[in-house]
């Protein structure tokens, strides 16, 4: 017996998830519309000087690769620099999720893509 073939007369995907064409088309339309409309949403604040962003990104990449995460230095803190805070991946995600870290989507995405990170 093949555990995957639930109905030999109408072979479907091995995972048993049979997505109707009309549902897929509707989902695609909704997803596309949401994405294309979101392009006008202003990016979250990024005011750090470029060299600081580069340094932070490099440090974060190394930290993530090591299983931890670092807060970016306070954007207002150039006069009184705040030392980096090292977090577990779960705590870092919570901080990102709650908006405690001003990491743009592009930064996060590029970081993950560059280092093949699939989970945080």
């Amino acid at each position, binding site marked *: 017996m093949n555990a995957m073939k639930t109905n030999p007369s109408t072979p479907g995907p091995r995972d048993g998830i049979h997505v109707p064409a009309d549902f897929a088309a509707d989902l695609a339309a909704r997803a*596309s519309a949401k*994405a294309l409309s979101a392009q006008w949403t202003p990016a979250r604040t990024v005011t750090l000087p470029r060299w600081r962003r580069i340094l932070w990104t490099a440090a974060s990449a190394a930290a993530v690769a090591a299983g931890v995460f670092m807060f970016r230095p306070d954007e207002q803190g150039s006069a009184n620099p705040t030392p980096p805070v090292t977090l577990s991946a779960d705590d870092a995600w919570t901080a990102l999720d709650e908006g405690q870290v001003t990491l743009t989507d592009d930064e996060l995405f590029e970081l993950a893509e560059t280092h093949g990170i*699939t989970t945080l």
Partner: protein
Amino acid sequence: MQAKDSAEFTELVQRHAALWYRVALRVVLDHAAAQDVVQDACVKIWGAWDSFRGTSARSTWAYRVVLNEALTAKRRARPTETLDASQHAGIPDSPYFEADAALTALYQAVASLPERQRLVFQLRYFDELPYADIASVLGTSEGGLKANYHHAVAKIKKQLAELNLDAFEAS
């Protein structure tokens, strides 16, 4: 700078929405949440459209975004508010999911795997992705993937055998 090609993006979404929904559903195990994952992933795909470096197929890159979004959504969700008993056993809750006893047992066996093995198994067995694409999606070596897949299959076969279910066909 070349302008974003919204037509190309829309065509990509139309072509892969069903697959992306399946990928998301297998991770988040909830019909509505899977749709949210696809939509949120599309926002990120379009937002990062110009940063795509072309080191893999655009569809592979997008697949990775969807999978990452699903994993993120799963981690964000609090179990008590999103999962019922069957979902705790790794069974998707969707009107489009159909399973007999054997497939249900397979899902339960897959759910018991460590995350890396589970992902490799799902991409390889359910979506039949070549190892090269899986390596691109998960950001790891093909050798490591093959080892993960081998271990996953061995564990699943053992669990199904204990339930007196014949082994599935895994290449």
